Every structure is written in structure tokens, then in C-alpha cells.
């Protein structure tokens, strides 16, 4: 949108919303919305505190472990499914089911089987992320241009060479796309896990602050979380764009 002939940058309306937030808070419209300035102040004051650092590291730990697991398991499974028709036909229905299923429903099972600790949260995170990673890895492998495969054969490439020099790069944009979506889902998974399973990490902070009506604190942590989630998402999108320059139309 243009204002006085200048093209406004994409997310700049957030500034406007920020001002609105500030006003709503100042005018004391509702108890639950403190002014943005107060939230930001609280944010900076709690960031260094041991409570916050502990919550962040617990959440980060669960998140990272979950994402690593989903990548380490998901990408190879997806690739194998893309290459082997039998395996694909056996597994694909289940991948599709779990992709669209409300995974939240599985959390009680995890709680019951694996306890109320970090393990369950990590598994929850993995479960949220893994299906789309599998699907996209599979798609990435399946859409490799036939001509590239034939070209590799005609020039006598060994299987390892072919994989490292051609197939990997050809499938990479799609795989990265899957990882990006998977990571976003993982963030949701780790939070849902924390809300339902055990009171650690950010989930604990949310419970603590909301039950003590510390609204500014609650929003501060929320803002940090949302900002982190958004940054990760944008960073991955950036990576994907860097790699995808050669992906062209699919």
C-alpha cells in the first residue's frame, strides 16, 4: 500500500497495531490487556532471570530434540517411500492419516506410556513435525526430473555420486519446504505438550502468570514465544528461498 507515494514495507501495519495495543492498555479497556510499553518493560526485566532462562532452555531442549528426531527419522523414511513403491503403498495411508488427524488426541496416550516428563514432550513435538517432513521428502524424491536420472545413467555416474551430486540437490527445495512447515508444527507441538503433559518450560510460565493474574508477565512471555516462532519460520523461509532459486516451476 502506498502512502504519499511511498511504498510501505510489508509488515509495517504491526506498528499501527502496536500503537493500538498501547492505547487500549492505557485506557484500561480491559484488565487482561496491559499497555504494550508495560509488557515490553516486563519483558526486558524477566529475560535475564533464572526462571525465564530455565523455561526457555527446557522448551528449547524439547523443541530441538523433537525437531532433530523428526528430521533424522522423517527425511530417510520419506526418501525411501519415494523410491520404493511397495513401502510407499504400505506406509502412505498412515502418513496421510496422521497428517490430518488431531494429534492432540494422542497426547494422553503418550502421558500414560511415557510419563509426565520431558520424554513425552519430545515425542509430542516429533509427532507433530514428522508427517509433513516425510511427505515432502517423498515428494521431493518423486518429482526429480526423469531426464536428470537418465542423464546421470548416461554419463555413467555411480549411485553415490548420483545421489550426492544430483538427487540430493534436486530434492532439496521440497525437503526444505517440508522441514520449514514441520518446524512450525513442532513449535505448536512443544507448547501443546507443555500445556497438557507437564508443567515445564514456557507452559509452566503461562500457567504461573495466568493463575496469578500477572498479565504483563503473561503477555511478555507470549510475545517472546511468538517472536521466536516467527523468526524461526522466517529464517527457514529464507533458507528455502536461497536453495529454491533453481527449483523453478514444479
Amino acid at each position, binding site marked *: 500500500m502506498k502512502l504519499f507515494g511511498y511504498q510501505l514495507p510489508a509488515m509495517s501495519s504491526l506498528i499501527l497495531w502496536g500503537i493500538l495495543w498501547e492505547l487500549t492498555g492505557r485506557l484500561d479497556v480491559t484488565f487482561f490487556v496491559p499497555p504494550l510499553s508495560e509488557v515490553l518493560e516486563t519483558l526486558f526485566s524477566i529475560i535475564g532471570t533464572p526462571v525465564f532462562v530455565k523455561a526457555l532452555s527446557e522448551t528449547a531442549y524439547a523443541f530441538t530434540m523433537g525437531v532433530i528426531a523428526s528430521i533424522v527419522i522423517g527425511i530417510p523414511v520419506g526418501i525411501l517411500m519415494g523410491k520404493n513403491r511397495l513401502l510407499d503403498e504400505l506406509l502412505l495411508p498412515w502418513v496421510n492419516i496422521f497428517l490430518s488427524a488431531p*494429534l492432540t488426541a494422542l497426547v494422553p496416550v503418550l502421558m500414560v506410556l511415557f510419563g509426565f516428563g520431558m520424554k513425552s514432550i519430545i515425542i509430542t513435538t516429533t509427532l507433530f513435525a514428522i508427517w509433513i517432513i516425510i511427505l515432502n521428502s517423498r515428494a521431493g524424491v518423486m518429482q526429480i526430473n526423469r531426464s536428470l536420472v537418465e542423464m546421470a545413467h548416461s554419463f555413467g555416474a555411480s549411485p553415490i555420486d548420483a545421489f550426492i551430486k544430483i538427487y540430493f540437490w534436486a530434492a532439496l527445495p521440497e525437503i526444505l519446504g517440508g522441514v520449514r512447515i514441520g518446524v512450525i508444527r513442532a513449535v505448536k507441538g512443544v507448547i501443546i505438550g507443555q500445556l497438557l503433559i507437564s508443567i515445564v518450560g514456557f507452559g509452566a510460565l503461562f500457567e504461573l502468570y495466568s493463575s496469578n493474574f500477572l498479565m504483563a508477565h503473561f503477555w511478555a512471555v507470549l510475545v517472546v514465544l511468538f517472536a521466536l516462532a516467527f523468526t524461526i519460520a522466517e529464517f527457514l523461509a529464507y533458507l528455502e528461498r536461497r536453495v529454491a532459486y533453481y527449483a523453478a516451476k514444479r
Partner: protein
Amino acid sequence: MRSRPLFLKLLSAVIVFGAWEIAGRIPVSNAFPTFVESMLALVTLTLDGTMFTAYVETLKPLVVGVAISAALGIGLGIWIGLSSKFDWLFSPIFIVMQSAPLAALIPLLIIAYGIGLTSKVFVVCIMAMPVIVLNTSSAVRNTPTSMIEMGRAFLGTKLDIILRIIIPSASPIIFSGLRLGISAGFIGAILAELKITPTGVGDIISFSRSIADYPSMYAAIFSIILLAVLFLNLLEKIEKVLFKGNIRGYASD
């Protein structure tokens, strides 16, 4: 051979359920019932009506939430898609909402709106709306320029173009946005039940867990997943039938 995919699907189902049965018998854990036990519990719960009443409870916030999200979301999405001012104003909100773990807002909703139907409906709405709005606005904005030009060239009014060209052209993506929104809404509904107040199916799950009636718990979870998946698959099939021509790409291809 054409029956192979079906055969393999059945085979994979048998393998998975068989593994479940075996794992239950070992047992992998005291809390892991066999497949047969869970299915029996499912049948029992269905026959004595518990399942039915539970689902009516659970589906209430889901249906209301999805209806509101669809109406608001599509309307907002069309507006955002048509007006660059509104796009600038509202898109960032929904973009942030889409990558954010909205579940974190649930504790807030609980203190603000209590533990009744209202907060559950809210949960469904915040989970479902972003994807509906973003899909709709994107579809509207990406209407092929030549079709719009064609409408103008043949003297269509702005309203004509919106109603007869832009919205029909955007329908497939709007519909698939709805499908994704419903899927997110399901997650919201269950989350609401497990976290806010146990009612409906969430109650069966929590209660069974607390009295260690694991077959019932697994039965309830199995039923939700089954239902959600069946319903979403149905939507996908409807989508394919309704939008046959459009899935192939636009007429100009």
C-alpha cells in the same frame, strides 16, 4: 493389478493393528491394552450411548467455532484480497498467527472467559481462522489477470467481476482453506476439552485414564482420530468433485 493398492492398504492396516495387539499382549506397558480390548471397549461405549452423548458435547464448540471462523474468515479474506489497504493492515496479523503456537493463549482465554462453551469456541476460532483467511485472501489476490481483464473488456462492472469471476475462481482454494481450518479446529476442540473442562469425548479420555480403564481411553482416542480422518477425507473427495475443472489448472493452462 487394480486390486493391489486396496490389498496393500488392508495389509498395512492388518500389520499395524496386529502390532498393536502383540504389543498389548507382551505387554509393552501396563497402560497399553491390546487392539482387541480397545475395540471391545469402543463397541461397548457406542452401544450404551456414552459415545454418542460425548460427541454431541464435543462437536458443539467445534461446529459453532468452525461456522464462525468460516463466515468471518472467508469474508475477511475476500476483503483483504480485494483491497490492498486491508491487506497491509490485516495480513501481518494472520501471518504471525499462522506460525505462532496459538495454544499458548488458552490459559488466557480460560481466565478471561471461564471454562464454558464460550472459551472453547474461542479456542476453535483462533486455531481455524488464520489458515482460512490467508488461503482466501491469497486465492482472491491471485485471480489470473487475464480473466479480470476479460471481464473488464466485456464491460463487466466491479461487482460483476467480483461475483462472477473472482469468487468462483478462488473457490477451490477457499474450500481447501476451509478443510485445513476444520482440521485445525479439531485440534482446538480436543485441546479445549483436555485442558479447559472435561466434557464430551475429552472427558471419556481423562476419566478413563484416572481410573486406569485404558481400553476405554484408547477406544475414545481411536474414535476421534478415525472420525476426524474420515470427515476430512470426505471433504477432500467433495472438493475434487465440485472443482473438477479447476484442479486441472485454468482454462489457459
